[in-house]
């Protein structure tokens, strides 16, 4: 037992050390940017997973939350000079409110109908932003987007001249969301979510307030997703309605989480990092060859993963992880894949 614990801790330490020293070795801004984007996507997929993975709800409209977070924070910053470090919490708060407004009527819907509703809301929000030039004193910018005003090197305003600080912020955000996911998974709410994922009617019959459990989990998910949106805005320094709110954003979160292993703590992280890295690599090598070829290859990989490893990449890793720890019990194996992957 103790040997297992030591191995677990040393593995965590190893990953943390690797995470923190990467910028010492990767000095070219482009490469560091790519790695940073991998972390951001891992973060966003994990945020999506907090509700959708754990509770088995297919939201295809999480771009709404990245957009609300990003726009609120950027508008406060552009027009009122409020630091995005503060604005991000205003944006996240707005996203939480919105998640409740959306969740209240849609959580009655089951399966495909819920997914369709989120698609509709997601597309609606894109159109809404594209046709809004200003909101009271705030400039929204409509379809041409919103440029984040440049301050130079201003750490207090979430702006840095080098890529390194962005990398470390993304890393810390990812660590926080993983710790939160781990806590949530093992909390009472986490068990409610697994129960209602497996059988909502049975969960209801036992006295679980299914709608409230969903609302709370969706609020957590919206909060973290919105913070990711603010980060994205500050990293790219330009908000384009379709990129921040559109189906690309929403679907990507779902792909990464599902391919990695939705409903597990580390699945979305694994999916986010590996899949995004693959997409960058094929874009780098095939991007010029033919228009859209890299997207086609990327799509194929997603399809094959879903066909042959429906539980996600995490399922493969779990096997090696257990072997490393010296656990061979099959019953335990099956359970840990579902529940405590990579704890």
């Amino acid at each position, binding site marked *: 037992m103790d040997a297992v614990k030591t191995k677990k801790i040393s593995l965590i330490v190893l990953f943390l050390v690797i995470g923190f020293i990467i910028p010492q070795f990767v000095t070219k801004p482009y490469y560091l940017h790519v790695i940073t984007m991998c972390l951001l996507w891992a973060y966003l997929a994990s945020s999506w997973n907090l509700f959708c993975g754990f509770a088995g709800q297919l939201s295809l409209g999480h771009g709404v939350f990245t957009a609300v977070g990003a726009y609120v924070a950027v508008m406060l910053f552009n027009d009122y000079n409020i630091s995005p470090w503060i604005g991000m919490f205003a944006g996240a708060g707005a996203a939480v409110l919105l998640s409740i407004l959306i969740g209240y009527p849609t959580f009655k819907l089951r399966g495909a109908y819920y997914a369709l509703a989120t698609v509709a809301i997601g597309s609606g929000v894109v159109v809404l932003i594209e046709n809004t030039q200003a909101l009271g004193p705030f400039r929204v910018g409509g379809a041409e987007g919103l440029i984040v005003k440049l301050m130079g090197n201003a750490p207090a305003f979430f702006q840095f001249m080098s890529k390194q600080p962005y990398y470390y912020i993304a890393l810390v955000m990812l660590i926080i969301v993983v710790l939160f996911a781990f806590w949530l998974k093992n909390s009472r709410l986490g068990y409610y979510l697994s129960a209602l994922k497996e059988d909502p009617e049975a*969960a209801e019959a036992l*006295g679980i307030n299914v709608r409230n459990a969903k609302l709370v989990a969706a609020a957590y998910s919206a909060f973290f997703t919105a913070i990711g949106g603010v980060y994205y805005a500050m990293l790219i320094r330009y908000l384009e309605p379709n990129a921040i709110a559109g189906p690309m954003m929403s679907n990507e979160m779902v792909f990464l989480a599902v391919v990695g292993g939705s409903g597990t703590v580390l699945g979305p992280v694994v999916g986010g990092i590996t899949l995004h890295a693959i997409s960058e690599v094929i874009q780098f090598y095939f991007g010029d060859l033919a228009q859209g070829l890299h997207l086609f290859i990327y799509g194929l990989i997603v399809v094959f993963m879903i066909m042959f490893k429906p539980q996600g990449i995490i399922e493969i890793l779990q096997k090696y992880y257990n072997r490393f720890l010296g656990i061979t019990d099959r019953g335990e194996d099956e359970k840990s894949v579902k529940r405590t992957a990579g704890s």
Partner: protein
Amino acid sequence: MIMKLLTIKNLNSGYGDIKVIKNVSLEINTGEIVSIVGANGAGKTTLLKTISGVIPAESGEIVFDGKRIEHLPPHMITDLGIIQVPEGRRIFPMFTVYENLLIGSVLPRTIKERKNNLERVFELLPRLAERKTQVGSTLSGGEQQMLAIGRALMGMPRILMLDEPSLGLSPKLVSTVFEIISKINSQGITVVLVEQNVKQALKLSQRAYVLENGMIALEGSAEKIINDPQVKKAYLGL
């Protein structure tokens, strides 16, 4: 003295435009086992679902322990002590037996009593204690039914409503399950039993209602109903 625990008056409910339960009135007294029997599609499950709040009542009254409950959401009705063992067991297949039982006691009033309730359930259903760490999907049908009953008991029911507990079980297991129900009743828990297995259900219960096309066709003591020529012909094949 007979205490009325659950009274239903002129209840109507159904799915949208389709009316399933038509003007049903019935009474459940404290400590009884009451059977609700009837053919497929008679509305037995719909009646239970309306009582537990999963399907909203269109009109009529459901009074539990002096309180109107027909407008309450399911989790609040469960909190009052009306707990359902759903048809087809509906256990959580990826949870272990132990976790399935724990999730039966999510209500604040039951959390404090969790340890005692667990002991009681394991005493009543020793099979579950043996299978404690096993995942729900690996249990046999009978064991799953016992788990569903144990899970409901963790919620400390005042009325336990069982929907077709004998469904898909071998005759021997059916007897076992009915024995367990009788034991639960002897611990002071009122039982409402919905069954297609009319003969066994009537043997176990004091009173019964026969549901036909969403209406109460017959009611009275179990003895009276089992000897009713119509029932004999229609349900018992005699």
